[in-house]
């Protein structure tokens, strides 16, 4: 699909230039990309708010924009804004009623969602008085009101305090664990890395890499890193002889770089007799940040 808004001064298209995606059900799919790369544009296409300049797409087998699949999706917008005159309960009731939800089970669902996003205690406050983070929380609750099979989210943790962000990430995992699909747009790579199952990297409107998180982060010449504490002069020398390289981290903490898992474990056992403490042992992985920067062609000077 492509959505070209205009062309810039040099005649290059602006917008979403080449999007080709397939999202499998039951996973957290992350669409990451720098500002202006076309994440929000992608979501708007999925929701039928804008129309592709070329190409087409489907959600659950229905053409984009069809009201049929909208029964089964949820949407958490970026920088959300709602009708001012409603309070949290009224707002959820309004959006739920659009799906024809009524009755006591609907009331329960409203309470459940407000508790889930931490707004139950503040449910009587009017949207007009909400802080940025409160708007974000209620936006999530409204996106889940119909118990959707797929939730589209645009920067869902923007404006949230650290606790709020952790809670929201927990909610996102919970949705996935119920077998639902989450389509997540963000540029917060540190947050996306432990969260997403599959990632697509979008740059200048073009998807430049896709794959499962494990595939993307796998390092070709992988090595093992072991972190030790409490090394004496002699045990440090011992470590240096066993490891490929040693790097000092904090005053008494060292990271040894080993060729494989076995040599790392052997070294740890040998050092343990000298009272050295093994803090951490893990294969070296690329970070999503590194993969991302490589995919988008480095940091401009």
């Amino acid at each position, binding site marked *: 699909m492509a959505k070209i808004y205009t062309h810039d001064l040099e005649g290059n298209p602006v917008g979403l230039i080449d999007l080709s995606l397939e999202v499998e059900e039951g996973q957290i799919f992350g669409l990451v990309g720098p500002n202006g790369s076309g994440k929000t544009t992608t979501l*708007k296409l999925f*929701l*039928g*708010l*804008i*129309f592709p300049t070329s190409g087409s797409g489907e959600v659950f087998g229905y053409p984009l924009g069809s*009201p*049929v699949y*909208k*029964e089964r*999706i*949820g*949407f958490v*917008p970026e*920088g*959300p*804004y*709602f*009708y*001012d*005159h*409603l309070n949290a309960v009224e707002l959820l009731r*309004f*959006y739920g*009623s*659009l*799906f*024809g939800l009524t009755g006591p089970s609907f009331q329960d669902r409203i309470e459940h969602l407000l508790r889930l996003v931490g707004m139950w205690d503040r449910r009587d406050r009017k949207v007009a008085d909400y802080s940025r983070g409160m708007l974000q929380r209620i*936006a999530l609750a*409204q996106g889940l009101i*119909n118990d959707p099979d797929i939730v*589209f989210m645009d920067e869902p943790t923007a404006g949230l305090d650290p606790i709020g962000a952790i809670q929201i990430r927990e909610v996102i995992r919970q949705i996935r664990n119920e077998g639902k699909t989450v389509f997540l747009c963000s540029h917060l790579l540190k947050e996306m890395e432990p969260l997403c199952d599959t990632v697509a990297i979008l740059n200048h409107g073009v998807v430049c890499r896709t794959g499962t998180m494990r595939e993307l982060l796998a390092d070709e010449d992988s090595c093992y890193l072991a972190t030790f504490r409490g090394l004496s002069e002699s045990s440090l020398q011992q470590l240096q002889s066993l490891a490929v390289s040693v790097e000092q981290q904090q005053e008494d903490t060292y990271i040894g770089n080993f060729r494989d898992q076995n040599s790392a474990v052997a070294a740890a056992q040998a050092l343990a007799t000298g009272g050295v403490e093994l803090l951490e042992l893990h294969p070296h992985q690329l970070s999503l940040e590194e993969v991302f920067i490589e995919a988008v062609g480095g940091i401009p000077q």
Partner: protein
Amino acid sequence: MRAIWLIAKATFHEAWRRRFLNGILVFGILIIGSSWTFTYLQPGAELKMLIDTGLGAIRFFGMLIAIFLGVRLIPDELEKQTIHTLLAKPVTRAQFMLGKFFGGVATVFANVALMGITFFIVYTIKASQFQKIAAEAEEGATYTMIFMSANIAKAIGLAFFELTVLVGIAVLASILFSWILGAIFSFFIYFVGQMADFLRELSSPEHGADPVSSIIFGVLYRILPHFEIFDIREKILMDDLVPWSLLGNITAQAIIYIVVILMIGYLVFNEREV
């Protein structure tokens, strides 16, 4: 239906939070409530003056409310992006547009009703006194008042239908142009529509206009809404019972007009990116 109703309801509630519209309403009510104090300007014709100013004020302030409300109904949703969460739900653009329109119409109805009630109170208090003055005045007109209050109610009803057409025009104009241009356009249509008879005269061959402009005036006469048909003040003063058939006729014209406007609006809005 459900979506239209819910969106209309939300639109109605949001509209009452618009300070500017509240201001127009309060101002209108003040003018109508105090209209009897100006009647000394036309000694002997106080009652005529009361009805003229009262109904005139309802139409005028109603017109301001209808236009300023109408042109903001959809642009507000686009600017604040509240439309995104709505259209992400099983809500079609047609339902959205109709919901906004009917919410706007309901708001106008409530505004007209409040001004109408104010006017009725003033009328009830002052009418018999003014009639007495008129009867005693040497050259003053005398009014029979058998049908007067029924006719006033009908006039207010017609004012409401007139404003409904105007809300439709304002909504359409805001979709076609920006809201500011839409407001200017709506005012233009409203004032030209008030002079529909004049346009017909201009277009008639006897008037001697050159053929091109006479065609233009003719086309304008045919496509513009004839807002003057909603003004039945003269009939009220004659105290003829305004027949239901006339009312039905005018209302039918209004409804046809609204349907056409909304259909054009839908065709444009359905293709619109939001």
